[in-house]
């Protein structure tokens, strides 16, 4: 019985390891860009180069390299462009923070416009006080309507 288990384990272990490796490679390859079909990931591209790179990535993984090692290996050859998620560094700061900068700018402009508008309305009210007899009459009428 125990022997049987050992045999089963021996037979099953490589398959399990393979599944784990496949899953790991799959997730890694979806984060990498195919240089030939630039809007496809390495995982889905049918280009011959993508085939070669997948093979290369698998060999590196089997040789015990970490995901970061493999990414570094590809970046050294093809540049940051192979990464779908650009790294954070001074040249990419504008890329990462630009949208927030724009949002902030828009917010500031919007607040400025709002503030000026309220000031205008307030000014208008202040400069046209309800004092004239015609206005008083209209006011009385309005009150009467409201009271009904």
């Amino acid at each position, binding site marked *: 019985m125990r022997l049987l288990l050992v045999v089963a384990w021996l037979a099953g272990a490589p398959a399990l390891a393979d599944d784990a490796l496949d899953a790991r490679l799959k997730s890694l390859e979806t984060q990498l860009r195919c*240089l*030939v079909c*630039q809007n496809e990931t390495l995982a889905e591209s049918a280009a*011959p*180069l993508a085939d*070669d*790179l997948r093979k*290369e990535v698998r060999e590196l993984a089997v040789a015990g390299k970490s995901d970061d090692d493999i990414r570094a290996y590809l*970046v*050294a*050859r*093809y*540049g*940051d*462009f192979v990464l779908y998620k650009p790294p954070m560094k001074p040249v990419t700061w504008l890329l990462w923070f630009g949208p927030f900068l724009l949002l902030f700018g828009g917010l500031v402009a919007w607040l400025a416009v709002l503030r000026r508008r309220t000031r205008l309305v307030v000014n208008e009210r202040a400069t046209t006080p309800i004092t004239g007899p015609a206005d008083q009459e209209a006011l009385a009428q309005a009150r009467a309507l409201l009271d009904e």
Partner: protein
Amino acid sequence: MLKTLRWSLPLALFLVLLAFLFVGLFRDPREVPSPLVDKPAPAFSLAKLHRPAERLSNADMRGQVWLLNVWASWCVSCRVEHPLLVALAKAGVVPVIGLAYKDKPEDGLAWLASNGDPYRMSIVDRDGRVGIDFGVYGVPETFVIDKAGIIRYKQIGPLTADALDKTILPLVRELQRS
């Protein structure tokens, strides 16, 4: 002051955007700048196409400025740049080594026989391993490598007369002098 800002600031922003878009019109998104420029050429040792028993490695090219031209018999745009390479070989300004990329040696030999062989020699990268080390992703590609074995320039896609005359050959001459 604030009044001027009200129209000049949006205009300035618009002009900046326009400038970015305009520059973008003339850039080729397929040309990815190589991180290998100004770095030592990756180590290689490959069999020669014409004499498979012999190998060529980086060390053999030390001390001279040379071009590495990545080509293949299956590569269509290699035919476009080929006459320029043949002319360059005739002028004898700089040795050109051919890297037969993912090509059967017999196909490569036949291709050279019918189109002319401009290469000092060609080496065979059958499985594309060395190509990957050089960051090759679109054949043809041409590297300018200096006397110390450092990559100085990379041309992605076919060579053009313009690229040769304005960029590559002046760079080669400058590197040969130093």
